[in-house]
């Protein structure tokens, strides 16, 4: 499939409300130029307005704000980048914390939360002296619900290769007819979106085709983060379930990702055709949907030789980390994080990524502070009130100060579910908010 490069325009603006109109006009015109529909453009522009107004209140007056708008055919991403060392990061919590303990309440929604509702993905990332705030608005695509069942006769040698447009459609049809909905990526409901995502290199679709070009199976993947690839599948036609196709699809995935920045590939919704012996089980998470709970296992495969590492872990999760590292044969020296009475920040900061289409929020620590428990509770309440049921917290063990969040997480009914080797600076422990669950 012919790859298309994404377009990007940049604006350097300043923290000054007088520039609000300039900023929103820039985003609006760029989004329209990048092919976003008028309705989606309005929503994105309104979200940008909320964010910019919020930044003008919080970023020191006249400080520069870099604004990038990228068009990727299927979506437009707006990214605000600004320095953050000179003011109180607390204002970048999605939830504002008022009161303490049981009296905790969120009296005023932040502009960021309001903005997050107008877009498909919202995220705030913190790294050293910069903050990146990303808003993604997707193009509208028609949903295809019905596919006709077909029983083609496959002949000749099977080849595994990158899919073209028709083959993507055929694979979506094959998967939709033969696999339960839970095994299908959400984007499979919109074949046009999958084709556009593949054209822009954001989504990879590989198919197994027979001699006559008939699609007999496939696999899809995308980059979850800088170091992690998530995949879905393998999908195989019932006629060839016992063939080598699933193995070949997995091998292709590994060959394509092995000499990249990826440290591993992970699949949380594997089909029954996943060659399990080639993967390691990391643990399980629950998928909550309108109160209904489904347990799903996460399968992982490291792509490189694990270099070994020393981890500093809070005592309340040390047993979990020991158990997981032993199960995975990871060379880890585990030391217990000890608080030695040093002064701490009064206020904690948590970054958030909200993925509305998959009903998921991922929280990450930025700064530990005395109000960590209250802050976590405030985030959970806010997200729950917004109808988001699947709330995760990712703790990178490469930053020992993040470990201080562990007791607060446990207190707020987060449970450690799995450990992903080297998915961040070091291993990442994934917690899930599971009220009423025992470990």
């Amino acid at each position, binding site marked *: 499939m012919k790859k298309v490069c994404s377009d990007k325009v940049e604006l350097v603006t300043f923290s000054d409300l007088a520039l609000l109109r300039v900023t929103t006009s820039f985003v609006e015109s760029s989004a329209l130029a990048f092919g976003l529909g008028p309705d989606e453009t309005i929503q994105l522009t309104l979200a940008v307005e909320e964010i910019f107004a919020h930044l003008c209140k919080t970023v020191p007056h006249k400080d520069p704000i870099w604004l990038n708008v990228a068009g990727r055919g299927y979506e437009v991403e707006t990214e605000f980048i600004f320095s953050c060392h000179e003011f109180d990061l607390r204002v970048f919590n999605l939830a504002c914390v008022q009161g303490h303990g049981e009296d905790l309440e969120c009296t005023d929604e932040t502009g960021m939360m309001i903005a997050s509702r107008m877009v498909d993905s919202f995220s705030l990332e913190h790294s050293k002296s910069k903050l990146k705030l990303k808003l993604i608005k997707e193009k509208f695509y028609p949903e295809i619900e019905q596919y006709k069942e077909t029983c083609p006769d496959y002949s000749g040698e099977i080849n595994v290769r990158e899919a073209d447009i028709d083959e993507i459609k055929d694979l979506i049809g094959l998967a939709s007819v033969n696999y339960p909905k839970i095994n299908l990526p959400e984007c499979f409901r919109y074949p046009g979106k999958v084709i556009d995502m593949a054209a822009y290199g954001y989504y990879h679709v590989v198919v197994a085709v027979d001699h006559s070009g008939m699609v007999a199976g496939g696999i899809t993947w995308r980059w979850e983060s800088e170091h992690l690839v998530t995949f879905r599948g393998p999908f195989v036609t019932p006629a060839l379930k016992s063939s080598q196709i699933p193995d070949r699809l997995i091998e292709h995935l590994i060959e394509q990702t092995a*000499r990249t920045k990826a440290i591993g590939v992970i699949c949380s919704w594997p089909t029954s055709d996943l060659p399990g012996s080639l993967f390691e089980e990391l643990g399980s998470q629950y998928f909550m949907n309108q109160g209904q709970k489904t347990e799903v296992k996460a399968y992982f495969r490291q792509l*490189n*030789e694990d*270099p070994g590492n020393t981890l500093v872990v809070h005592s309340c999760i040390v047993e979990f980390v020991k158990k997981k590292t032993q199960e995975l044969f*990871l060379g880890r*020296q585990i030391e217990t994080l000890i608080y030695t009475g040093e002064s701490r920040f009064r206020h904690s900061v948590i970054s958030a990524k909200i993925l509305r289409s998959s009903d998921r929020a991922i929280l990450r620590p930025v700064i530990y502070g005395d109000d960590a428990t209250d802050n976590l509770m405030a985030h959970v309440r806010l997200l729950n009130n917004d109808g988001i049921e699947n709330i995760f917290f990712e703790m990178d063990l490469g930053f020992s100060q993040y470990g201080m969040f562990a007791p607060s997480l446990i207190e707020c009914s987060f449970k450690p579910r799995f450990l992903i080797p080297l998915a961040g600076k070091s291993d990442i422990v994934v917690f899930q908010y599971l009220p009423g669950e025992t470990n």
Partner: protein
Amino acid sequence: MSSFWRLEHLLPEYVKNFEAYTPSRPDRELMKLYGCSSLHRLNNNENPLGPSSEAQKAILAFESSKAAIYPSGDSYYLRLKLAEKFDKTPDQFLVGNGANEVITFAIKAFCEQGDNVVTADKTFAVYEWVAKFSGYEAKLAPLTNFEFDEQRLLDLIDNRTKIVFICNPNNPTGSFWNITRFRSFMEAIDGEKIVIVDEAYAEFVEDGTFPNCLDLIEEYDNLVVFRTFSKMYGLAGLRIGYLCAQEAMVDAIKKTCVVYSVNSIAQIAAVSSLDSDEHIFRTRKLVHESKSFLTQHFNELSLDYVSGEGNFLMVKLPISDTLAYRKLMTRGLMVRTMSGFRFPGFIRISLSHLPIMEELVDGLKKILK
């Protein structure tokens, strides 16, 4: 402007997108992390016999006071020795801090923005890496039956291709082109592109049809041959390798060469190594015995393997190679996972002394139970 902004704007995209290679930690650290009391490194295809006795004597004879003096900037005596051994002129050799450095010299010398290099997808990664982090495209031809495929390489060549890299014998499959195949490829190239043949494992090959490409240099002015002292000669820790070509070619590559990068001890040890035929004989014998031992056990265990020339072989496991690596590490056995070579599920084992090979087979049996 903060350092973040400076870096973001100063770093080229092709460097930003490149992931730095992480070398393994020192043995003592690894043993602590994996809880093992000893560690056999079977991952880097080093020579278990070490350097030849001649090289060892030369290393011991090095006067420590001479550490204060710069080495010969162009490895003068080593080039003389190489010229004498291979019946060439000293100016036909360029010595580097390991063969990896001469790979970099060659790419730097010939490629400019928009150019590409062609090689195989499942071969030594450094050709691809150096091209990529220098901003050039690496076009990769799939192997056929674990061998470099002439036609697939030729199909990838375009008017911006400058270099074709051939690893002969190929690491990690051990396959090689014989003299007929090699000549026919050179004829197809017709002098239009530079052909670099990496013969890092040439000294291990006993097959008479193997094309010692040093002998072909006078015939092809576009041919460059790489050799190393890291494998057969057991000097991996000293980092020394070289390239050989016609003088005009060497003069061209020399322009991008960083002089004084090869240390004095490495040069002295390399000179002495070239006289050690006995060492080659003993190493070949050890490789032969270990290879027979392993292949016999892999047959018994019904494990598929790829065993060609060189002091290594690849075996396919029914579990992930990266998991096998970790499990073997807990038993003090370090192998090379092959996912990074685009052979998922395979591990590459450096051939070593029989008792260590026995330990490896035992370890494999236990982790595959």
